[in-house]
């Protein structure tokens, strides 16, 4: 059974290939079958493999499938090999499962689009690349998947290519993430040079053997990998691309910019946690980046009008939590949050997609309202997602995962109260903006009735995801609520447990209560400001500083502006100034002087015999002079 592992990425690839080659000739049904089916098949295989893996775990706790040696040169021999362990298994299940649901959803959602087969080709390609990323046994292969998903992200953001805005957003996404990727590539160069391999397990082994904790090389490598992760996961300071990425079709946002690709950074850090453990300063940076990002993005999410942009900032913020968890060594908590986040965020996007589609492509929440009766499925599922996002205590998956992060942030030797407070504030913000969406969209007065209708292919994924968003958290019950840490236990085969500071380890229950209260408080505030007392909100935002702050947050803390001024404009200026290649002017100069020489010498060809005789005389003079003086 495990031997079929290669099929997991291969099937979506095959689907993509079929769609690329024959997509134009297939009917829509055929495209849908191939597109969604391939991911479904992949999901089924993954599930079967998972069952086999759980019931009959391999001896070492992982399974490696070597396909072929990619390249062998000068002692460097990366393999095309897949590796299945607890970590990748969880990720693969989520990706294929959620991915399939989103594909299913898309078959209906994209029904009327010209690029139907193109869409599924890209989507399938994406899933395949994501699976390569997750299953790669070698950092180079991981990098292949890493870039591959970036590519698909680009293609899908700019899917509606006619509008330059979309194309620009896709380009921005690719370029910004590529900045991080390049740093990561440099990290790989360093690893190849210093450790001679990119095989992840070998690498970790050698790193531990050769590098002391805190050694400069380990710090450098970890920092470079972090840069890659930051780019892919839209964390500070490379988060600017994600809100713009919402230009893509909504299923894309759900799949790529919520559930899967953007969490690749989390996966990378978890995967190479050994390196981060060797570089405590970088790990601290991970935590700080996470905390800062979750706060910044949370603030920005509060101020958006576009429902998808709220979700985008929300995603940034939630990944910030995962980074925070990684930074404090709560590896499995991060993965846990990844999983629940995949459920509820995909759900939110898909539900929002339904809303947007039914509102004639209206993204502005302030132009919606009161939709709960007209769009009951969307409303209830969205509500479940929002509750999960807001970590509504006890009943949502988001609560369990976020709570785990907060608790472990507090208690970890690497964490502490400050990071915990940041997380808590973030949680407060989260529940405000989550329910801000709910209240603005589904409550209040009906501003415009929705049009059209939604089929089962839209609803089934919503419902399944809603269920998962609610119950998905029960795989990991904290000590205070039943103490059934199945998920962590399962992952511990691949990821070490958090190291707790004994002095702070005892306060779990109190922390949970605080967190739960904060979440509920957030919902209340949202209710108060955005539903009950809209005038209060207006009063609050009237003062000039408040408006400026609002604007500042809405514009994503000015990062776009900053990059534009510091990087983009100078580059464009240079490119514009040097469009005709200044170096060529040097050769123009040579040509010019040759012409000048020609003109000067041609002037001696006067046609007069006297001039010519003068030349003769001058020659005689020069030669005689040479004879005299030499």
């Amino acid at each position, binding site marked *: 059974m495990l031997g079929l592992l290669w099929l997991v990425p291969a099937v979506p690839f095959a689907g993509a290939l079929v769609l*690329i080659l024959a997509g*134009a000739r297939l009917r829509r049904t055929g495209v849908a079958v191939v597109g969604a089916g391939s991911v479904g098949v992949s999901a089924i295989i993954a599930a079967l493999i998972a069952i086999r893996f759980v019931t009959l775990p391999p001896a070492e706790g992982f399974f490696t499938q070597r396909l*072929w*040696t*990619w*390249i*062998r*040169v*000068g002692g*460097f021999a990366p393999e*095309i090999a897949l590796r299945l362990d607890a970590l990748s298994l969880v990720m693969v299940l989520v990706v294929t499962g959620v991915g399939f649901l989103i594909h299913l959803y898309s078959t209906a959602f994209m029904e009327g689009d*010209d690029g139907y087969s*193109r869409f599924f080709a890209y989507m399938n390609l994406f899933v395949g690349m994501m699976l390569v990323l997750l299953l790669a046994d070698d950092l*180079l292969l991981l*990098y*292949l998947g*890493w*870039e*591959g998903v970036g*590519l698909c992200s*680009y293609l899908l953001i*700019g899917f509606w*290519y*006619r*509008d*330059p805005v979309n*194309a*620009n957003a*896709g*380009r921005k996404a*690719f*370029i910004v993430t*590529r*900045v991080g*990727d*390049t740093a990561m*590539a*440099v990290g*790989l*160069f*360093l690893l*190849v*040079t210093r450790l001679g391999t990119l095989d992840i397990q070998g690498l970790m082994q050698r790193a531990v053997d050769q590098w002391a904790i805190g050694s400069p090389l380990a710090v450098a490598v970890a920092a470079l990998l972090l840069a890659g992760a930051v780019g892919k996961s839209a964390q500070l300071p490379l988060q600017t691309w994600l809100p713009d990425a919402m230009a893509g079709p909504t299923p894309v946002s759900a799949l790529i910019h919520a559930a899967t690709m953007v969490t690749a950074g989390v996966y990378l850090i978890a995967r190479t946690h050994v390196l981060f453990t060797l570089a405590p300063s970088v790990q601290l940076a991970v935590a700080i980046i996470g905390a800062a990002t979750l706060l910044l993005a949370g603030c920005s999410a509060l101020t958006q009008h576009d429902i998808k942009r709220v979700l985008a900032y929300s995603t940034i913020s939630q990944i910030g939590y995962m980074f925070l968890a990684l930074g404090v060594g709560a590896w499995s908590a991060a993965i846990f949050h990844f999983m629940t986040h995949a459920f509820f965020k995909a759900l939110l996007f898909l539900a929002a997609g339904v809303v947007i589609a039914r509102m004639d492509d209206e993204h502005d929440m302030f132009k919606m309202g009161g939709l709960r009766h007209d769009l009951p499925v969307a409303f209830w599922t969205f509500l479940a997602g929002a509750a999960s996002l807001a970590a509504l205590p006890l009943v949502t998956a988001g609560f369990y995962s976020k709570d785990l992060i907060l608790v472990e942030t507090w208690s970890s030797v690497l964490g502490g109260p400050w990071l915990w407070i940041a997380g808590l504030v973030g949680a407060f913000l989260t529940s405000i903006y989550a329910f801000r969406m709910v209240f603005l969209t589904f409550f209040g007065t009906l501003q415009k009735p929705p049009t059209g209708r939604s089929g089962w292919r839209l609803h089934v994924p919503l419902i399944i995801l809603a269920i998962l968003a609610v119950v998905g958290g029960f795989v990991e019950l904290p000590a205070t609520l039943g103490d059934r840490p199945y998920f962590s236990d399962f992952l511990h085969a691949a990821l070490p447990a958090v190291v707790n500071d004994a002095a702070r380890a005892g306060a779990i229950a109190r922390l949970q209560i605080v967190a739960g209260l904060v979440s509920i408080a957030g919902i209340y505030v949202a209710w108060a400001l955005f539903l009950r007392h809209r005038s209060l909100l207006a009063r609050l935002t009237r003062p000039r500083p408040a408006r400026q702050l609002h604007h500042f947050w809405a514009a994503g803390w000015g990062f776009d502006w900053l990059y534009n001024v510091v990087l983009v404009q100078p*580059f464009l200026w*240079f*490119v*514009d100034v*040097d*469009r005709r*290649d200044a*170096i*060529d002017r*040097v*050769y123009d100069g040579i040509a010019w002087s040759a012409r000048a020489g020609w003109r000067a010498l041609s002037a001696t060809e006067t046609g007069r015999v006297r001039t010519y005789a003068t030349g003769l005389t001058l020659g005689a003079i020069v030669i005689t002079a040479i004879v005299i003086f030499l």
Partner: protein
Amino acid sequence: MTLVWLVVVPFVAGAAAWVADRWSHAWPRWIALAGIGIDLAIAVTLWFGTSGAALVPGAGPWLAEIDVRWIDALGIHLHFAIDGLSLLLVLLTGLLGVLAVAASWTEIQDRVGAFHFQLLWILSGLIGVFTAMDLFLFYFFWEMMLVPMFFLIGIWGHERRIYAATKFFLFTQVSGLLMLIAIVALYIVHGRATGTYTFDVTALAGTPMSSTMSWWLMLGFFGAFAVKLPMVPLHTWLPDAHTEAPTAGSVVLASLLLKTGAYGMLRFVLPLFRDAAASFAPVAIVLGVIGVVYGAALAFGQTDLKRLVAYTSVSHMGFVLIGIFAGTTIALQGAILQILCHGLSTGALFILAGAMQERLHTREMGRMGGLWADAPRMGGMTLFFALASMGLPGLGNFIAEFLVLAGTYRVSPIATIVASTGLIVSTVYALWLVQAAFQGPRHGTARLRDLGVREMATMAVLVAALVWIGLYPQSVVDTASPAIARITSAPRVASRAP
């Protein structure tokens, strides 16, 4: 004899194509295709026939060799030989030669016979360059191929073709002439030291000479190759030539002619002047890095599609330069892979640009846009090769650039890091290229004809090659490795004697 056929067949086929033009315009095309096709077949046979034992280091230097006296008075021989490195480049020449003929199938309607005559002469010259093991013979072919190239650009090129052709010719010739001095000087130094006057590369490899002399001679060779490569700041002929050339000309220029520069460095500069090259390496690497970044930045600034692609060549060949002078096995392998992959991807981009120009009668990207709707195949292919050229993993260029940079890191981390930023800039231009041509609103109303069967077949070959190298480059690596082993183990002889 095989090697002689490699050079002679295209040459003769070219002449035949010229003559055949009297009767029909179709004949020259088929003759040319057959001529270069035969070469490709020979090269492929050679490759399959000699895989395995013969490619193992130490199994004798050449896969095939022929050595006949030519100009005895000066010790000049017709010495052709082929090793893995040469073989790869000959394969590339054969492949892209076929594709170049195919790409010109409908584009060229004027003086068809003469066109194919010139084209095949260039290819013949290229194969000569890649297989000549006598420095004079090498130089002979080196210079010989310029003339048909000049005509190719000058007669069948676009608006500023004469300027471009002349510039190309002058740059390459002047640098070639300086190399001639270096060749002759090496010949004389060797003759003085050993009493044997010969141009044979293997014999010259161990010439004892002062380090100053070695340095100067190395510069002489390096200059010529750097112009061809091209290295910033000697690159300015390239955008003009590439832009103005007809499609086949651009393809041959970008995919093959530039490679002669890299080949020359690998074959001559490194083995002949190992120490001088080593001490020069930092300069070369810095120039390579500048080329990578500068070329990429300028590529982004262009509004002319072909010019954009031309500048990407500057950038990509910068990687080759870095890889060659980093000198580690990994970097050298990377450089060779980059030579091949850049040949494939840029060749494809030029074919596509040519196809677009043929249909739209413009290369200005400002007058394109939104073409995807009409020509999805063309768009997809452009996208694919743009991605290849920005080094998307899974395609050959990635492996090449990765190996170059990974191999260079040991030598100079800073250079590696700066060169890596080239990867970012390359993303910028590659995506801009696709966006400007295929995305956004549609200009004009005329429907664009999508790629036809002939063009798609051409593209498919290139796609397959790039994916193959991207996922399983080992066959290429193994072919090149004996040659690289020889380079990295070249004798250190400089500064021994006078």
